[in-house]
């Protein structure tokens, strides 16, 4: 008995010591899990726990975590000291195309991915000036630039298990050994002869590398391809259009509303054969819930833009899929914009967060500032819409019916052949385009960098020729009400209201970053990186970079234990095409009508490609 007691005490003591050691080592290396911030207030949204682990100081994927929070748990830089932020080092990529890819930081190495031709630089952060450890030349085919609708951009790489995964513009996915830069495998996932490119960042989860195709303006057939992480072999392909067997819809498909239910809707909601060239590409952001083992992503606009050529709901374009990661089978689908009339893709970021329910419970939800102008909060288990309030000016839709899940269009705003329809709001890039928001568990707010553009539109019959644009629309965009072309909105997804907004002259094309230091960072197309107070929106610091900013700012902990902020600078993309492509502003329809909205951009900024890294003085 006595011996047992002593033994028990010893075990307890050892356990306490081990626990203490583990606890201290954990707290010395990490900051609280993002989810921990949510405990303070029951009224706030909090990130999905399993999809948003504690911050380890790295930035391994564009969205920061599977929940796509773009939130850094680092808190050394605060509203009190951000005014002293200064450049630590810079890195020039040698490219001048639109620079959208966030640098990744993993264990004291920074991985910089460039736009076409998709080179990668691995920078050693432990050495002064961060010299390159290795470089990788993607050598993406130049011809691919001719079928990339909105600039030969790349939206970032993904680090997992000692490997770096990225997509090349000419339709290949590659896996690199993160230590050496050696190419481990290369798989073709898209065909430029059909107008397909790949611009999105892959998402790696559950042993799969998930990749979609771009080309919603080229008459492609959209799809998500899952590759085996180890070999690069294709595991499954889930098409956006076509028969259920291609879309991977089976008996376990449970759409949230009757409108998305039926047999072979990917065929029957189209005129004969048109689903084969109907778009619905997958060029945006994926999120993943490890508990439900579901991957979430949105599909692009249907093609062509001239909707008269494709009567019907055009499933499964302009909506959100929830797919089982292992099999690719569709669990549910919700079509945000049936029979899209204005290029209102649905590919924007999906933030996985748990919101307070009516009885004090937490509802596993997703937050989606959509291109059609509505901020959707949906139950991510079922797809049911919990709320959908406009976060921007809209005059082409009346609202979302929560009973049926239907978007209610304004019939007189439907473009017709032979007529120029004026003052369509939001314009083709929507209330917000690809550039993702950040979600702070500290404030519970979603920080949305977006745009305020309206357009005139005339449609005409588009001729399908593989490898060429399939659009059939003349568009001319201009600033919406108020005259400011950009807006930065802080949105409370629980109370469904705007907390503050900042008007920006130029369209906002850069993603946002939120930090535990209660700061939010975003960039402008004329090159300013701005830091604002996460609670009030007050501008606290800004820095003018060499070119315009359309890339994701990130935050990481350096080998010296300090917090760093990094941002790519290099104007381009659809909004910046006038600069990178040297377009002529005297044609208002240039770049699918975007040129008219940014006629002044060439006078303000030139092309470039530089990563800026900032820190507080030592």
């Amino acid at each position, binding site marked *: 008995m006595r011996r047992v007691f002593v033994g028990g005490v010893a075990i307890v003591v050892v356990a306490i010591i081990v626990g203490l050691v583990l606890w201290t080592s954990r707290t010395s290396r990490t900051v609280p899990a993002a989810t921990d911030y949510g405990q303070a207030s029951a009224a706030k949204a909090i990130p999905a726990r399993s999809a948003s682990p504690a911050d380890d100081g790295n930035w391994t994927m564009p969205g920061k975590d599977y929940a796509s929070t773009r939130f850094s748990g680092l808190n050394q830089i605060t509203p009190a000291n951000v005014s002293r932020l200064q450049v630590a080092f810079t890195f020039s990529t040698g490219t001048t195309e639109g620079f959208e890819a966030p640098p990744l930081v993993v264990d004291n190495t920074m991985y910089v991915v460039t736009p076409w031709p998709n080179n990668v630089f691995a920078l050693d952060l432990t050495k002064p000036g961060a010299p390159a450890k290795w470089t990788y030349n993607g050598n993406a085919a130049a011809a691919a630039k001719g079928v990339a609708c909105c600039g030969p951009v790349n939206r970032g790489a993904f680090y997992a298990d000692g490997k770096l995964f990225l997509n090349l513009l000419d339709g290949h996915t590659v896996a690199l050994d993160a230590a050496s830069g050696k190419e481990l495998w290369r798989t073709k996932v898209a065909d430029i002869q059909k107008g397909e490119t790949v611009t999105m960042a892959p998402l790696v989860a559950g042993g799969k590398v998930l990749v979609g195709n771009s080309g919603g303006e080229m008459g492609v057939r959209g799809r998500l391809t899952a590759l085996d992480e180890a070999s690069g072999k294709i595991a499954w392909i889930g098409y956006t259009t076509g028969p259920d067997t291609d879309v991977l819809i089976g008996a376990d498909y449970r759409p949230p509303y009757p409108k998305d239910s039926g047999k072979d809707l990917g065929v029957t909601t189209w005129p004969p054969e048109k689903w084969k060239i109907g778009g619905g590409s997958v060029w945006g952001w994926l999120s993943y819930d490890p508990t439900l083992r579901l991957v979430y992503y949105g599909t692009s606009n249907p093609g062509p833009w001239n909707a008269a050529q494709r009567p019907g709901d055009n499933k499964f374009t302009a909506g959100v899929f929830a797919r089982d990661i292992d099999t690719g089978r569709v669990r549910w689908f919700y079509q945000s914009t049936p029979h899209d009339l204005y290029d209102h893709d649905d590919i924007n970021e999906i933030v996985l967060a748990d919101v307070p329910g009516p009885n004090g419970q937490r509802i596993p939800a997703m937050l989606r500032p959509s291109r059609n102008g509505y901020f959707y909060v949906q139950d991510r288990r079922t797809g049911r819409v919990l709320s959908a309030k406009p976060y921007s000016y809209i005059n082409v839709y009346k609202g979302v019916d929560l009973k049926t899940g239907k978007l209610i269009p304004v019939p007189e705003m439907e473009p017709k052949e032979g007529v*120029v329809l004026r003052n369509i709001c939001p314009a083709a890039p929507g209330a917000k385009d690809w550039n993702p928001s950040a979600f702070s568990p500290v404030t519970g707010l979603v920080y949305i960098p977006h745009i305020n553009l309206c357009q005139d539109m*005339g449609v005409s019959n*588009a001729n399908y020729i593989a490898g060429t644009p399939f*659009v059939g629309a003349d568009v*001319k965009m201009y600033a919406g009400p108020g005259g400011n072309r950009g807006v930065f909105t802080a949105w409370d997804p629980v109370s469904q209201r705007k907390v503050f907004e900042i008007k920006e002259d130029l369209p906002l094309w850069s993603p946002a970053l939120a930090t535990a230091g209660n700061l939010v960072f975003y960039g402008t197309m004329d090159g300013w990186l701005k830091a604002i107070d996460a609670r009030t929106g007050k501008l606290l610091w800004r820095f003018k970079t060499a070119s315009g900013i359309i890339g994701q700012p990130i935050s990481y902990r350096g080998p010296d234990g300090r917090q760093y902020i990094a941002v790519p600078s290099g104007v381009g993309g659809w909004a910046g*095409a006038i600069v990178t492509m*040297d377009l002529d502003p005297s044609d208002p*329809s*240039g770049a699918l*009508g975007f040129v008219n909205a940014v006629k002044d951009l060439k006078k303000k900024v030139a092309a470039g490609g530089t990563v800026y890294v900032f820190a507080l003085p030592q």
Partner: protein
Amino acid sequence: MSSLFPNKLAGIALVALLSGCHRDQQQPRGQPLGETVPEAANPDTIFPGGAPQPPLDPRAAHYERNAYAIAQGQQLFTWMNCVGCHSHGGGGMGPALMDGKWRYGGRIDQIAASIAQGRPNGMPAWRGKLTSQQIWQLAAYVRSLSGQVRKDAVGARADTMSNTPPQTETIRKPVQPADSAQ
């Protein structure tokens, strides 16, 4: 008065004679030229060792400043989805065509060659999809976008949804050396 009459007659006779002369001097249609796209047309470049620059393709004169060819080219420009990349000359996925800057040369035969052969930064090769005549017509229209042709040859009505001014208002841009856009 009476002295004026013979003068008037002489004047009429002179006009008739001159116009007759003009008619006599009218260009015969001559030997028909094969409607092939100029394989020999190069992007502007250096011809080393004093090698001669290739002359303008003789077919150029049949299409350039030809209202019919330009109108046909304008229609093809939309039908063949050129407009999707180059817009109405301002550019987008492809470069602007109205600014006088030519990556691969701004002569009509050079433009026709670019359309037929494609170019490495994304310009598709149309040789297998369009007839040579259509390619020449497209080249004639493309050249007109930067105001290189006479105003009486271009369309006075924009072929678009009132977003772009008609071509008769296009200001002539000087042709820049090839690749100046790069």
